[in-house]
């Protein structure tokens, strides 16, 4: 076993805070690798030590391998935790950390590479007996062959530039007549954007749920599966609400999917936290991708399994076995809502600015993962997620109710948040029934929410009251003294 005295955190925001807490509880010192602007954050104030690794622009700071490795090394860190996003799934970074004599808290660079490549990942899954989305990614790119493959896959089918990530060069073919033009178009886009007209074909699942299995390989080589999360509530491939477990799976299907997930992780000799994403349509599931890192939505799994995934990651990196129960018993239901700094009445337009007072209404089964405190600046350089609200209760209906109440009592001043949008989703019949698919947002919330608009009366009352109670200059300090806020935990202001 290797003992860590100091861990460097190559990330920011709420996940950096999450990792620092885990380190504190394990008695490990922390050094935060941060950009110039992120001195205004909770993680900066909480970390034992800090090193600036570059300017606000991510390419020069959070995505800069050399700066991160040097920063960690110069402070004498034994290990580096990459969090999620940024360099967390970058095999070169994992290797650079190891080459510098530190431990990368995550899977091996080989595992990251294996799952990072869509084709090698698919091959491994097929070898492990996992179902993959029917498709074609062969060398023969003749139109004749591609059209034949489209026929074999069936409709709807997607054609996509093989070289690109995300949705670039992706076309949906709904019927035979559309195939030729869609292929030509994807080839053109691929050629102009990535310099390659190579395309691949895939069955298009248009009524699918996003179900992902949390797996964990400990240092002793044991592979655990901690059940699933459902993340069907997405907007532009960005998850908004996640829950564990999924209301769509019965015991049999769950067991089957868990077995497949375990087989995939075992075949890769996987170590650390990982998530295997599937699309589930009409009781049929298909491998989507494997994320070789901690997920944003890991707290819902922690709630229903009773584990601490971040501490488990650190212990695993130190060479310790976890000794978890081989088969998890799941307790109750957990839901996570991501709080984005955006205007819910303008289709989620980012809202930036200095954060004013906040109230996080703590209570049983309520967890807040917050990265910024009053006075901190929310800038346009990074993802707009400023916090996560996670609740647990005995059943799904109770958890939904608890989430609604929690969000209604949550106050964030200074930047607009998506709370009104989240509340609308939480009361939508399709969400409540558990039948939602990944098309939920675009089918039900294609248009911006209508702003409620404060009445003139209420506006007048607020202004009058403000006038009566004194000067317009409200400092944080005297607000606190006059009206102590029982909801605020001490760390949020530390």
């Amino acid at each position, binding site marked *: 076993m290797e003992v860590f005295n100091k861990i460097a955190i190559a990330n920011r925001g709420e996940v950096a805070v999450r990792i620092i807490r885990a380190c504190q509880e394990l008695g490990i010192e922390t050094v935060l690798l941060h950009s110039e602007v992120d001195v205004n954050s909770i993680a900066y104030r909480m970390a034992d030590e800090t090193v600036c690794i570059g300017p606000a622009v991510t390419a020069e700071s959070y995505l800069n391998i050399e700066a991160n490795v040097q920063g960690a090394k110069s402070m004498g860190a034994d290990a580096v935790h990459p969090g999620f996003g940024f360099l967390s799934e970058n095999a070169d970074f994992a290797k650079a950390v190891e080459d510098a004599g530190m431990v990368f808290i995550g899977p091996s660079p080989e595992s990251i590479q294996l799952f990072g490549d869509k084709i090698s990942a698919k091959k491994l899954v097929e070898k492990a007996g996992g179902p993959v989305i029917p498709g074609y990614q062969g060398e023969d790119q003749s139109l004749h062959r591609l059209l034949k493959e489209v026929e074999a896959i069936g409709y709807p089918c997607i054609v996509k530039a093989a070289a690109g990530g995300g949705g670039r060069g992706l076309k949906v073919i709904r019927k035979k007549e559309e195939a030729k033009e869609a292929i030509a178009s994807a080839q053109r886009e691929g050629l102009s954007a990535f310099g390659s007209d190579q395309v691949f074909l895939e069955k298009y699942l248009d009524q699918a749920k996003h179900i992902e299995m949390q797996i964990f390989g400990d240092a002793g080589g044991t592979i655990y599966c901690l059940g699933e999360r459902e993340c069907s509530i997405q907007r*532009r491939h960005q998850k908004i609400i996640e829950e564990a477990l999924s209301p769509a799976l019965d015991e049999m299907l769950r067991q089957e999917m868990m077995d497949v997930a375990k087989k995939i992780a075992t075949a890769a000799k996987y170590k650390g936290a990982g998530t295997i994403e599937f699309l589930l349509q009409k009781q049929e599931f298909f491998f989507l991708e494997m994320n070789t890192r901690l997920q944003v939505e890991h707290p819902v799994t922690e709630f229903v399994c009773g584990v601490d995934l971040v501490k488990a990651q650190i212990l695993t990196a130190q060479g310790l076995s976890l000794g978890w129960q081989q088969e998890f018993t799941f307790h109750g239901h957990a839901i996570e809502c991501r709080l984005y*700094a955006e205007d819910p009445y*303008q289709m*989620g*337009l*980012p*809202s*930036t*600015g*200095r954060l*004013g*007072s906040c*109230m996080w209404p703590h209570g049983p089964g309520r967890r807040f993962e917050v990265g910024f405190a009053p006075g901190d600046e929310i800038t*346009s*350089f*990074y*993802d*707009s997620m400023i916090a996560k609200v996670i609740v647990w209760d005995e059943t799904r209906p109770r958890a939904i109710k608890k989430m609604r109440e929690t*969000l*209604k*009592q949550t*106050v*964030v*001043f*200074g930047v*607009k*948040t998506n*709370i*009104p949008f989240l*509340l609308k989703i939480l009361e939508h019949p399709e969400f409540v029934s558990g039948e939602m698919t990944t098309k939920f947002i675009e089918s039900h919330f294609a248009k911006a929410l209508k702003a*409620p608009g*404060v009445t003139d009366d*209420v*506006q007048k*009352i*607020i*202004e009058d*009251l*403000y*006038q009566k*109670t004194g000067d*317009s200059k*409200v400092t944080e300090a005297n*607000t606190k003294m006059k*009206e102590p*806020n029982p909801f605020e935990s001490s760390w949020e202001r530390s």
Partner: protein
Amino acid sequence: MKEWTLEINGKKQKIFVEKLGGKLWYHLNGETGTFQPESKYGSGQSAKANTDPGVIVAPMPGKIIKINCQKGDVVTSGQSLVTMEAMKMEYALEVDIEGTIQEVLFNEGDQVGLGQKIVVVKGSSDGSEKN
């Protein structure tokens, strides 16, 4: 932040209020809102939001990644003139009127601040209608 209990339609409700940068923010009945106060307890500056539909302004700070029009172009209502990027997301800025592009004040790649004018469109019906 100030906190009061109000009685609205016979129902007691807590309200939280805070003034930030000249605006009053409030939280009432599960909803957060913000407005520009009119009284002297307001900002004191009458920085009204741009309401001219012919002026495309940056709704947030960010980077201009694409300009889809040039001076002299005839545009129709709903047409996307500029694509901006902020917080890793792209946003299309659309024009609300028909008209001709009179001025394009920035280039692709430029960083713009909140409320900065990017494109000016001259309405095709005469200007008097706009206001």
